[in-house]
């Protein structure tokens, strides 16, 4: 009886310890976002003062108003959205189509090509990105959005992989019945596969849009300053006409910049985490 209560005590104790560690970790993880938010409400003079001003004397909500009305910020945000949405739609479609082919058209060449898809997941991004830039520069396609258009049409190995794994679990009977009824492969894809895979589509769309929204290196090397996407604009920070960096204003911009992916993640987190798990075991 005594050992029983002791065991229970240990169990309760480890559980409590675990909970404490989790809460502390959560606070540590959220902390930079909180300090970012607090700093975004300061005046630049408060930000640069020594000793530090922990909290702004008067929260400068006007920072948010200013940054949203700033042509450099609003223009880049608009461009990023206008590029990101079509990019996400097209790359989702092309990846779904390839995933469908790899899942449902079983033949020796199909599994060999799928091996190539999996192998491509390992190739270092940079090794391809820089020579690709050289190719685009020769084709005079830098300073345009063509690199995004073309890579969207081509699909992405990771998304293809996600769609294939998902489509593999579709019941074969559904498809057979449709085929007997005279449905061709395209109609089967559009009318049976696509409508029944909203979860995967949402996940891939989230990843794809976020890839554009969060991108830094690709816009930096492909686009000129007047066409720049939001990631690069945020990274170079805002300056006043005399060239002095406006840090707290830039931080207000950063808070706005973080919101869309975070909100989307909370809305679809269950599906997204599932997709993340699949990406981890892809190797």
């Amino acid at each position, binding site marked *: 009886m005594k050992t029983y209560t002791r065991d229970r005590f240990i169990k309760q104790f480890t559980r409590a310890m675990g909970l404490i560690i989790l809460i502390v970790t959560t606070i540590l993880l959220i*902390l930079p976002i909180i300090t970012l938010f607090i700093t975004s409400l300061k005046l630049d003079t408060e930000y640069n003062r020594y000793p530090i001003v922990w909290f702004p004397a008067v929260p400068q909500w006007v920072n948010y108003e200013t940054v949203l009305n700033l042509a450099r910020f609003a223009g880049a945000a608009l461009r990023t959205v206008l590029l990101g949405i079509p990019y996400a739609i097209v790359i989702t479609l092309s990846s779904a189509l390839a995933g469908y082919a790899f899942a449902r*058209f079983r*033949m020796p060449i199909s599994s060999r090509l799928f091996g190539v898809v999996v192998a491509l997941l390992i190739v270092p991004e940079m090794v391809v990105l*820089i020579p690709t830039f050289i190719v685009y520069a020769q084709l005079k396609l830098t300073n345009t959005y063509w690199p995004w258009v073309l*890579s969207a049409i081509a699909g992405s190995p990771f998304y293809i992989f996600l769609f294939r794994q998902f489509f593999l679990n579709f019941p074969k009977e559904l498809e057979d019945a449709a085929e007997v009824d005279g449905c061709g492969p395209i109609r089967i894809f559009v009318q049976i596969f696509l409508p029944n895979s909203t979860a995967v589509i949402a996940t891939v769309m989230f990843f794809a849009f976020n890839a554009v929204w969060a991108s*830094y*290196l690709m816009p930096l090397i492909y686009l000129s300053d007047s066409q720049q996407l939001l990631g690069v604009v945020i990274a170079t920070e805002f300056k006043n006409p005399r060239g002095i960096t406006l840090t707290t204003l830039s*931080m207000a911009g950063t808070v706005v910049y973080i919101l869309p992916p975070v909100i989307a*993640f909370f809305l679809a987190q269950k599906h997204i985490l599932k997709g993340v798990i699949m990406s981890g075991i892809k190797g």
Partner: protein
Amino acid sequence: MAEKASTGSPKSLVNTSKHFTLKRSQRRTLFFFLFILPWLLGFVFFGITPLVIGFLSSLTNYDGLNLPNLRFVGLDNYARAFEDPDVGFSAVRTLIWCVVSVPIYLVVSFLLALILNQNIPGRGIFRTLFYLPSVVPLVAAVMAWRSILDKNAGMLNAVLDIFKPGIAIGWLSDYALEGMAIIATWMGLGFGMIIFLAALQNIPEEQIEAARIDGANNFQIVRHIILPLMSPVIFLQLVMGLINNFQTVQLPLILTQPATYTQGLVPPRDIYLYMIHTYIQIFSNRRYGYGNALLWILFVVVLILTAVVFWTQKYWVYSEQSSEGEKS
């Protein structure tokens, strides 16, 4: 004979009933290629072609403008890479970067996964919250951490200042490697935790129960049952982490804040990583040939690492079977 017939059945079926099946299979082949055509073209033009062009240009003195009088220089660029003191320096910095950041990433995310695998109230919420930093764009993550790690205005130095007035540690300049490790861990641990958690949940409950009945304590269970069973996943994460960190370029770039890619780049020496050196060769110095040679050296290193993973696959085949039930 019977055996032969059964193994060769799909083919013989096609051959005997020519009229219908062959047509159907041909049509299916056609549709297959039609569906993967966008990807296939993309693979050829944006996968293979750049790789080949990158390799070919690494054998020349290409600088982006001298196509008419291009000179074949053989392996000179590669020889030069091994004599370039900056390559040696940046490679060492990259190794230090890996040694600092990868183990932290593995240990922290593994411990979090272990805790979350317990029956703790609200673990679903914690799982979501821990992944949250991973969806924050890298650029925003650097800005957020700047409010803490900045040398003059950051809150960390302000806290340290209370204990030791006048202290000013350059977390993003003099000690940029450490600062970068903090940011990278913050962004990456959610991913690692999710992967480890998924693998932990594949461990049969009976094994742990059996050990517990035999009198093993928590530490012994982790040491003798969970760690061995998890070793394949840990190893895979280790290799993936190494491959990712070999190519780290965005974090140091963002910390240096170039407005355009041609801008001369002077990152702190502490984070003068291999890919940063390569980036400078290509974009600032326009040494395309040399830069591509540096890229291919990295590529070969990554290939060797990947090959090691595949050769040792038999040691982690356990996770392969449980995660992917069906292999084509």
